[in-house]
């Protein structure tokens, strides 16, 4: 083999190995993180069982952020920086967007999460592997504030051609509008809340009309159900399910009484 061929072979092999290694690297890091998370949850569950009245089991959290998260956060940062601008960075950036290491709120965003969503928007917006994470990225609104998330999905709408991606981005924009009505600071702004809710419903209608059969179109359904069946003055749709002892309970069996339907959980 001539030297040049060797170099080509080596470069190819190195390049291939590097891609595989990066994916493995993320999977390994993430698996370690998930194991730590599982241990944290189990510890919390133990605390809850020992003290059922104490609803606030900590499992070793420091000022609201679990210690294991603080331990792993820098590692994901290093991973994302190491693969910056390459497709391998995407998984690391999504992780940083969805796992704030501070206790953030929409008006006090987590700086690393903000930086990561900006990188995703600027460098990776058309990456097909991102589509599955749209929902989680939308949920990060609480960590990064509304604007960066809205920017992200508007860029998807411009840059992406894939039907599922477009449907999902439109749905997420709708959700941002919808949830803005119940964000802190919206108390007393009835008109603004109402107009954002209208924007949301128009978006959901667009998703149902333009992208039938997509997951996003399915996710829009409960919003139409709420609008058409769950308004004041309407007879509530029946609910049926199992009680804690396994016996069937139906909402309609309580006709004749005032009923409070309470969606709740201990968590």
């Amino acid at each position: 083999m001539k030297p040049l061929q060797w170099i080509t072979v080596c470069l190819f092999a190195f390049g291939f190995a590097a891609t595989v290694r990066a994916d493995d690297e993320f999977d390994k890091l993430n698996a370690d993180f998930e194991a730590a998370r599982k241990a944290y949850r189990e510890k919390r569950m133990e605390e809850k069982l020992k003290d059922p009245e104490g609803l606030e089991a900590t499992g070793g959290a420091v000022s609201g952020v679990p210690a294991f998260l603080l331990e792993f956060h820098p590692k994901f940062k290093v991973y994302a920086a190491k693969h910056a601008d390459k497709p391998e960075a995407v998984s690391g950036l999504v992780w940083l967007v969805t796992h704030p290491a501070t206790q953030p709120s929409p008006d006090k965003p987590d700086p690393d999460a903000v930086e990561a969503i900006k990188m995703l928007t600027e460098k990776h917006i058309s990456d097909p592997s991102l589509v599955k994470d749209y929902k989680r990225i939308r949920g990060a609104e609480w960590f990064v504030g509304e604007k960066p998330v809205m920017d992200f999905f508007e860029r998807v709408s411009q840059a992406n051609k894939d039907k599922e991606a477009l449907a999902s981005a439109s749905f997420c924009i709708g959700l941002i509008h919808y949830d803005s009505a119940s964000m802190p600071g919206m108390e007393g702004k009835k008109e603004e809340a109402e107009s954002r809710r209208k924007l949301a419903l128009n978006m959901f209608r667009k998703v149902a009309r333009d992208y039938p059969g997509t997951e996003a179109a399915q996710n829009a359904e409960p919003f139409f159900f709420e609008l058409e069946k769950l308004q004041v003055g309407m007879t509530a749709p029946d609910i049926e399910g199992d009680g804690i002892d396994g016996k069937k309970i139906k909402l309609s069996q309580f006709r004749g009484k005032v009923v409070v339907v309470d969606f709740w959980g201990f968590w």
Partner: protein
Amino acid sequence: MLPEQREWYGQMQGKPFVLLGINSDEDRSVLKSRMEKHKVTWPNIVAGAPDVNPISKQWNVRSWPTVYVLDHEGKIYKRALESHKDVAAAVHELLAKMK
């Protein structure tokens, strides 16, 4: 909401009133003992964690707790209430109307 609810539920005994919980806890195994410890004695439909709970998904519940108050004919009187005080006030309005 739980401690207020528990006390209120006791006071409401004998009135034409039902508190129906739609529980969204993921871990069913400890739910029964926790409900006993917390004296959750009113009817509850155990429907699973939010991502699989068919009832909260259909009803588009997006924050917990979410409360609907229905009159004695099953009509929605108030929806998506979050504070116990508002719920109790709505129930008493309806009970007064029934008399």
